[in-house]
C-alpha cells in the first residue's frame, strides 16, 4: 500500500469546506491508508488559520489533525540532512525551500507527496492531487 505524505495545503483543504479539494482531502485523511506529514506543516497551517482566516478554532482543529497523524507514526521531522536535500531539490526544480522540504520528506519515508498546489508541485510531477490519491483504485 502506498504511503502518502500530505503537505500543508492538503491539511488546509480538509479544514476549508469552500476549497475545491476539500472532499478529497477529507476522504484521504479519514481513510485508513498510510499517511504522514512534515513538522513544517504545523507552522504553516497555524499561520494561515491565525493570520489569514483569523480563526483560532480552525488552528486548534488543524493541530489536532497533525497530532492524530503523529500518533499514527506519521510525523516526519525536518532534520538537517532532510533540509540539505530540500535545498538541493529547490535548486534543481526551481521551487521554494518549503515545497522542496515536503518533496524531500516524502522521499525520505518512501511516500508519495500529495499537494493542492498544481502549478508549482503537481504540474512538475513532484506530487499528486488529493483527488488522485483518494481514488479507490489508487496504488
Amino acid at each position, binding site marked *: 500500500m502506498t504511503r502518502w505524505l500530505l503537505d*500543508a495545503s492538503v491539511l488546509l483543504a480538509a479544514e*476549508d*469546506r469552500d*476549497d475545491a479539494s476539500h472532499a478529497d482531502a477529507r476522504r484521504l*485523511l479519514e481513510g485508513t491508508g498510510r499517511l504522514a506529514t512534515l513538522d513544517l506543516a504545523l507552522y504553516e497551517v497555524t499561520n494561515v488559520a491565525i493570520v489569514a482566516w483569523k480563526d483560532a478554532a480552525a488552528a486548534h482543529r488543524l493541530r*489536532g*489533525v497533525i497530532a492524530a497523524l503523529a500518533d499514527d507514526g506519521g510525523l516526519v521531522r525536518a532534520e538537517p540532512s532532510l533540509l540539505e536535500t530540500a535545498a538541493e531539490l529547490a535548486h534543481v526544480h526551481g521551487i521554494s525551500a518549503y515545497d522542496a522540504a515536503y518533496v524531500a520528506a516524502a522521499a525520505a519515508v518512501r511516500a508519495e507527496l500529495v499537494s493542492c498546489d498544481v502549478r508549482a508541485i503537481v504540474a512538475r510531477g513532484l506530487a499528486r492531487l488529493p483527488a488522485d490519491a483518494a481514488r479507490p483504485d489508487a496504488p
Partner: protein
Amino acid sequence: MHITLDLSVRLVPAGACPSSRSQARARRVGRSGNEPVPVGYLATEYGCVGAHGTRESNLAIPGILSPVAKVMVSLPDDLLVDLDAEAARRGLTRSGLLRDLAQESLRRRGADRAARVGEILGGAGAHGGGVAELLKAHRPR
C-alpha cells in the same frame, strides 16, 4: 562483503518465500558473516538466497515479487513460547504470525487515526477556498 546468488533463478510470488526448509538453506549476507543485514530473497532451486540489500538491489517486480527483509528480533523466552503456541494454533509460521500481528496493529492504529480526524474535522469551517494560493501568500519572503 560477499553476495552469493545462485544463477538458476525462478521467480515466486511474494510471501511464498522463504519456507522453513529454504530458510535453513538460506545464506545470510553480512559484513562479518554474523552480522544481520536487511536482505531480499531470490528463490533458487537451492532455496532462498539472501541478496544484499539496498532497496534498489532487492529484486522486486510489482504484482509478482515484493522485497522481503530478514531481521533479527530479541524476545523474552516466555513470550517466544506464547508466540509459537499461537502460531501453531493459527497454522502459521513464527514469521507469519509476527507479520500478521504487526499488520493488525498498524491497521488498528490507522483506523483510530481516521476516526479521530473525522471527529475533529466534523467542525470544519468555510474559509473561502484557494488554500494553495493562500498558503504561498503567507510564507515569509
